[in-house]
C-alpha cells in the first residue's frame, strides 16, 4: 500500500512539474462517434498548428501540449469533458466545439471556470450576443454573417418565392432568423412562403420535399449540413426539386468532403459556402498549409475542417505571446482586437463581441470536364460584414 502511495505521489509530482513546463490545450471535438467525420479532420489541423508552433520554440519558450476529449456531439458530454479538462488535466484554455449546442455548453463551463474558450466551429449567433461573456471568443463565422450572405445570393439570383428549410435546433433556428434579417436588407420583395424545420438527425425528408414542391418556390434556403444534405438531396432529386428551384445553402456543403463523397450524385443548381477549398489558394500561404494537411490526411483532396481547428490554435498562441502570459484574463484581454494571418487570409477579433471577421467562400457548385466531383466556380469571398 505504501509503495502504491509513493508511486501515486511520484506521478502527481511529475504531472505537477510538467504542468509548469508546458502549455496545456484542452481540445474538444467529436472524435469517435457519429461526428468523427468532422472531428477527425479537425484534429489534423489542430495537430498541424501545434507541431508548427512547437517546432518554432513554443509560446513564450513553453511547448504546447494537447489534451483532447470526445464531445460525442452531445452538449452534456461536452460540458462534462470541458470540466474534466480544467479540473483534472489543468488545461490553460479550451479550444474547439462542433455543433452550436455543444459550443454553448462549453462556453457555459468557460464562463463558470473563468477559462478562455476559443470556439472554432459553432456558429450560433447567441454565443457572441446574448450568451457572450468575458472568456468566450469565436474564430468561426456566425449565423448572421451566413444568413446575410445567403440573402445576398437570393437577391442576386432574382428569386421571387422562397422556401426555407432548417434543422430544428440552435443552428437552424438562428440561421433562419439570420436569413430573414438579411432578406430585409438585400431582397425585401422576396416572398418567404414556408419555413420548414425537420429534426436534427432526420433521415426522411419526403414530407418536406413535397411541401416545397407544393408551395411552388423558385428558391430554397437551407442549412442542412453533412449527411442531412446527402439524404435530402438524394430524396429530392427524383422529384425534380433541383430543376424547379435554386438551392442556396449554408452549412458548408460546398466543402470538398461533401462534394467529393457525393461525386456524380451531387445535385444541380446548388449555391453554397465553405471556409476553405483545397483547390483554391486564396492566400499564398495556403499552398504550404494544404500540402501539410494532405500529408496528414493521406489524400490530396483535403476536407475543410482542418483550417478551422488550425486557426483556433494560432489565435491562442498569438494571444499568449502578446500577453506574455497564459493567465486566462490576460489572454482574454490580448485576444480582443488581435489580428493574425491565416491560410485563408487575415483575421481580426472584434474587441466588442469577441467575434473574428471570418468570411466564407460562396459560389455555385458546377461540373468540370474530366473531374468526377463538383467544384465551386466562380469562387467569391464574402467578407464577414453586414452592410446596413
Amino acid at each position, binding site marked *: 500500500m505504501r509503495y502504491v502511495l509513493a508511486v501515486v505521489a511520484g506521478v502527481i509530482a511529475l504531472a505537477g512539474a510538467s504542468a509548469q513546463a508546458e502549455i496545456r490545450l484542452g481540445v474538444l471535438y467529436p472524435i469517435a*462517434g*457519429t461526428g*468523427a*467525420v468532422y472531428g*477527425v479532420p479537425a484534429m489534423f489541423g489542430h495537430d498541424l498548428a501545434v507541431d508548427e508552433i512547437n517546432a518554432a520554440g513554443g509560446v513564450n519558450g513553453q511547448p504546447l501540449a494537447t489534451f483532447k476529449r470526445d464531445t460525442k456531439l452531445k452538449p452534456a458530454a461536452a460540458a462534462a469533458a470541458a470540466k474534466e479538462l480544467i479540473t483534472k488535466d489543468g488545461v490553460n484554455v479550451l479550444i474547439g466545439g462542433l455543433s452550436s449546442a455543444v459550443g454553448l455548453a462549453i462556453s457555459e463551463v468557460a464562463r463558470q471556470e473563468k477559462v478562455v474558450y476559443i470556439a472554432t466551429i459553432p456558429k450560433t449567433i447567441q454565443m457572441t450576443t446574448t450568451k457572450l461573456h468575458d472568456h468566450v471568443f469565436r474564430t468561426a463565422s456566425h449565423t448572421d454573417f451566413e444568413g446575410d450572405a445567403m440573402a445576398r445570393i437570393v437577391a442576386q439570383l432574382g428569386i421571387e418565392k422562397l422556401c426555407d428549410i432548417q434543422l*430544428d435546433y440552435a443552428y437552424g433556428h438562428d440561421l433562419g432568423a439570420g436569413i430573414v434579417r438579411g432578406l430585409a436588407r438585400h431582397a425585401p420583395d422576396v416572398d418567404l*412562403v*414556408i419555413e*420548414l*424545420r*425537420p*429534426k436534427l*438527425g432526420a*433521415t*426522411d425528408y*419526403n*414530407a*418536406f420535399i*413535397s*411541401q416545397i*414542391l*407544393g*408551395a411552388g418556390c423558385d428558391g430554397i434556403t437551407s442549412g442542412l449540413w*453533412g*449527411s442531412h444534405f*446527402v*439524404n435530402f438531396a*438524394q*430524396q429530392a*432529386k*427524383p*422529384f*425534380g426539386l433541383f430543376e424547379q428551384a435554386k438551392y442556396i445553402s449554408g452549412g458548408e456543403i460546398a466543402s470538398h*468532403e461533401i462534394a467529393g*463523397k*457525393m*461525386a*456524380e*450524385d451531387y445535385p444541380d443548381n446548388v449555391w453554397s459556402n465553405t471556409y476553405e477549398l483545397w483547390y483554391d489558394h486564396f492566400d499564398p500561404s495556403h499552398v504550404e498549409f494544404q500540402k501539410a494537411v494532405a500529408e496528414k490526411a493521406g489524400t490530396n483532396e483535403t476536407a475543410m475542417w482542418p483550417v478551422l481547428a488550425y486557426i483556433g490554435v494560432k489565435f491562442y498562441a498569438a494571444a499568449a505571446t502578446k500577453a506574455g502570459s497564459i493567465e486566462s484574463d490576460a489572454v482574454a484581454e490580448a485576444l480582443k482586437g488581435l489580428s493574425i494571418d491565416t491560410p485563408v487570409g487575415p483575421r481580426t477579433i472584434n474587441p466588442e463581441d469577441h467575434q473574428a471577421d471570418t468570411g466564407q467562400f460562396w459560389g455555385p457548385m458546377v461540373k468540370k470536364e474530366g473531374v468526377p466531383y463538383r467544384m465551386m466556380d466562380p469562387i467569391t469571398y464574402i467578407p464577414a460584414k453586414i452592410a446596413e
Partner: protein
Amino acid sequence: MESLVRFAREELGNPGLATLLDQPSFAFIQVLNSVSQGMNLFIIASGLSLIFGVLRVINFAHGAFYMFGAYILYSVAESYELGFWTGVVAAAAGLAAMSIVIERGLFRFIYDKEHLMQLLLTFAVVLILTDLAKMIWGTDQYSVSYPDGFGGAVDLGLTRYPTYRLLLIVVGPVILVGLMLFTARTRWGRLTRAATQDREMLGALGVNVPMIYTGVFILGSALAGIGGALAAPFNSPTPGMDATIIVDCFVIVIVGGLGSIVGSFIGALIYGFVFNFGSVIVPNWQDVFPFLILLVVLLWRPWGLFGRPEGEGA
C-alpha cells in the same frame, strides 16, 4: 372546400393543412410518401418481429444489421462497382452469414434466460457491431446512387413520383405475401409456427428445433440487410444510422403485435401515415406522434393490434 382552405390558412395559421386540403396532388404525394416509407420500415421490422415470434428474443442488434446492409451495399455497388442489385443480394447474404455466427455463438445460450439478460447481450452485440462498422468503413458519410432506371420519376396522372419509391411500394407487399406463404404453406413454415407454440413438444417429435431457430434468425437478419440495402440510396450509410431505425422498428412491432408479420405490415403503414401527415399538419410535433400511437396501443391493447395476449399460447 375553399372556405375550409381559408380557415386552415388564416384562422389556424396552418399552411401545411391548407395545402393538403387545397391540392389533391399534394395529398396524393403524401399518401405515397407514407406508404413507401412504411414499406421500407416493414421490411426491416418484419425481420425483428419474425425473430421475436420464434426465438422470443428482442434483438436490439437488428438496427446494426440494417446498418451493415446499407454499408455492404455501398461497398459492393459503389466501391467495387458490381451493380446495385448484386449489392442487395450481397447485403442479404452477408447478413445471413453474420447471423449464423451470432446465433450459434451467442444467442443460442440465452434462450432460456430472462429478458434482461437477453437485452444486455443483444445490446453488447450492438456496441461490437457499430465499432466493427467504424473499423471497416470509417466514419465518413457515403452517398449511394439510385440503380439504373430508378433515378427518375414516373407520371401517375395526378403527379410525378420517384420510381424508386414506387418500387418500395411494390416490394413491401411482395415480402409480406412471401412470408405469409412461407409460414402457411411450406413444411419449414409449419415447423416454424409449431416452434412458436411449443418448442419442447416439437423437439420430442424428433424435429431439430435449434436448426429452426438458426433458420429463422438468418431469415430475419437477412430482411434487415435487404431493408438497409434498399434504403441506402436515400439514407446515406453513416455511423449512428442504426440507432434511429431500431426505435422506429420497435414502435412498429409493438403496435402491430410482437411476432405478427401482418401486424408489422399494418404497424409500418400506420407509422408512415402518422409521420408524413404529422410532419405536414403539426410539424413541431413530428417526433411525438409515433410514440403517441405507441402509448394508445399499449393502453388499449398491450399485446398490439395483431398480437395475442400472453398466456393464450403466443
